[in-house]
């Protein structure tokens, strides 16, 4: 008897996965693993499961730089997932050119993506040779300064309204035993903070000239010298951070151990998860309060070419689910990012998101560095800035010289 029931149980376990597979399980890989991100991705899964298919979550921990190599080697190695996150832009460019990604143009024309996706540059980043290869899901902007109101209260100074006031308040924070600016040890954080300083201090045009046109002279010029000066301030203010991950650094701001953090709007999900309210518990300054411009990078899903027809069909369903207005609202509210379509109602958005939506509506947008620079140039930049932020003996002038070299050889 026992043996028979055991055999029956075995048979069930064999049959079950087979049965489930025919109902189109799609494995979706992404690197959304922090608290706020996981809550947001659960919304996507819920919406996709509602279409009768099944979302198999393939979260890869440890930020994009850890996850992307794994994704790429699975795709190039012949074991593709059904869909995968990338920052849209140039990260998946070569995979598309090698014919490993699926063309989504049919779905896109049918659902009129060209008309609904705002700003249009998002879809342009998904387009290679006139064909659309990815579905953008959100707009993330880097250009935010998050400040802990409690930390400034403890230090006895007003919450700053822009970068200069923040720099001026740093000594008071230090005196109170608070790290003025939290910068995590992962290299991309230092590099990102610099890009933000560049837009805020040197402005939109210089940013475009340096990263868009790869103008070496602009990179070596006086405008960028000012940015390096500010980066030097930031370096001094970040001394004593001693954490690695961005969300640990955000946590320092949430708990009032740090005065502020330059981080993209994905940090907002962490504040929300900690139950903090924009305006009363924390303050956000887009464009560091100096130059209210936001970049429109973000996340997009790419769909590797699959042989299985059923799964290919489900991929289409997933692509349209991702851009569904209801999904867009649910996902982006949890994630703290902005929706990719201009026609959804985000009444539930908090103050910070509304500021972002405003700037977006005014059209004060730039392209993100992921869209402008290749991964190779980005990595060299990361090497430079992680060294710069960790090594006080490196002068801003030296760093600028190396920066100009990177821009000169960038592609």
């Amino acid at each position, binding site marked *: 008897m026992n043996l028979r029931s055991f055999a029956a149980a075995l048979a069930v376990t064999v049959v079950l996965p087979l049965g489930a597979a025919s109902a189109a399980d799609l494995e979706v890989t992404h690197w959304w693993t922090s608290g706020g991100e996981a809550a947001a991705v659960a919304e996507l899964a819920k919406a996709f499961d509602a279409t009768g298919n099944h979302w198999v979550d393939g979260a890869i921990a440890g930020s994009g730089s850890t996850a992307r*190599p794994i994704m*790429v080697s699975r795709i190039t190695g012949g074991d593709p997932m059904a869909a995968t996150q990338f920052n849209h832009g140039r990260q998946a460019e*070569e995979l598309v050119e090698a014919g490993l990604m699926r063309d989504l143009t049919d779905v896109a024309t049918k659902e009129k993506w060209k008309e609904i996706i705002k700003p249009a540059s998002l879809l342009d980043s998904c387009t290679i040779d006139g064909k659309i290869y990815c579905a953008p899901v959100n707009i993330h902007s880097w250009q935010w300064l998050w400040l802990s109101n409690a930390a400034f209260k403890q230090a006895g100074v007003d919450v700053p309204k822009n970068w200069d006031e923040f720099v001026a308040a740093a000594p008071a924070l230090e005196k109170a035993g608070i790290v003025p600016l939290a910068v995590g040890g992962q*290299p991309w954080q230092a590099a990102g903070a610099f890009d933000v300083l560049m837009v805020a201090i040197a402005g939109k045009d210089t940013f475009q000239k340096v990263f868009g046109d790869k103008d070496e002279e602009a990179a070596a010029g006086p405008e960028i010298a000012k940015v390096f000066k500010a980066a030097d301030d930031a370096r001094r203010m970040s001394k004593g951070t001693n954490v690695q991950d961005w969300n640990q650094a955000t946590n320092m701001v949430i708990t009032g151990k740090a005065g502020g953090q330059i981080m993209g709007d994905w940090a907002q999900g962490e504040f929300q998860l900690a139950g903090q309210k924009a305006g009363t518990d924390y303050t956000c300054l887009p464009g560091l309060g100096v130059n209210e411009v936001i970049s429109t990078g973000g996340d997009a899903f790419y769909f590797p070419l699959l042989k299985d027809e059923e799964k290919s069909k489900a991929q289409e369903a997933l692509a349209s689910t991702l851009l569904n207005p209801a999904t867009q609202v649910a996902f982006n509210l949890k994630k703290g990012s902005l929706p990719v379509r201009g026609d959804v109602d985000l009444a539930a958005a908090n103050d910070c998101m509304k500021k972002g939506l405003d700037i977006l509506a005014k059209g004060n947008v730039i392209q993100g560095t992921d869209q402008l620079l290749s*991964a190779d140039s980005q990595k060299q930049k990361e*090497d430079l800035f992680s*060294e710069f932020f960790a090594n006080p003996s490196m002068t801003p002038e030296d760093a600028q010289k190396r920066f100009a070299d990177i821009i000169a050889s960038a592609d």
Partner: protein
Amino acid sequence: MAGHTRGSGRPNQWLRNLNAKLASIPMILTAVVIFLGGTVWTVVYSFTNSRLLPRLSFVGLDQYERLWAAPRWLISVQNLVIYGFFSLIFSLAIGFLLAALMDQKIRFENTFRTIMLYPFALSFIVTGLVWQWLLNPEYGIQSVVRSLGWTSFAFDPLYNSNIVIYGILIAALWQGTGLVMCLMLAGLRGIDEDIWKATRVDGIPMWKTYLLVIIPMMRGVFITTLVIIASGIVKVYDLVVAQTSGGPGIASEVPAKYVYDYMFQAQNLGQGFAASTMMLVTVAIIIVPWAYLEFGGGRKRA
């Protein structure tokens, strides 16, 4: 036996031990195709401008020029030299010392040997994490000593760019000396008991016996140990990733990490291949003289 030999002439050299030769074909193929083929492929593609996917468009020595101009690569090489030099000296010295102590017919030798060898059974990742915690100023050694009363005590090598590589060295020695000790102990056990008796009769002090008699007799063991340690040094990667992930800044970067980061994160295979070719050259510099001594020159002398 006679029945197998052909009627006339010498037996064909190629057909001798045919079974053994057939059996080794898979291994020979593996060695040639995977090891040799992979190596040649890597070296060839290091002269191309391959990005995310390999492609054959040659750019001469560009990748190598960029490599040797990159500050991060230079720091990596410098770190490897420091790390290699000290880890070679200390693991040999400490390993031999421990083995010599263990060889004094002490009680509970088995227990001690096991304890010493245990760290080696851990992966570098675990070792790295353990030492990351021990060296963390907020939880580790520094905070323990401070809580005992020495409040100005400072010991945070992993957060100081100038000495971070020594923090990694500590962890590496903790893990690696056990193995060296075992190898040395095996060597010591291979020394004939009569030699010890002879030196005792001659009244030679023990340290002198070790230095002038025993160590020269252990030449083979030393060379094997040297090669094992040296190849471990060149490929050090996971320990750094677990302890500092190259930080602070790029102060504890090592060549193997450069290879990985540029191949996969920067999506620049050409640059990664150039760096790994340089590592191969380093390994060759270590292995070739050893192989020559062991298998070439040595045999003639023997």
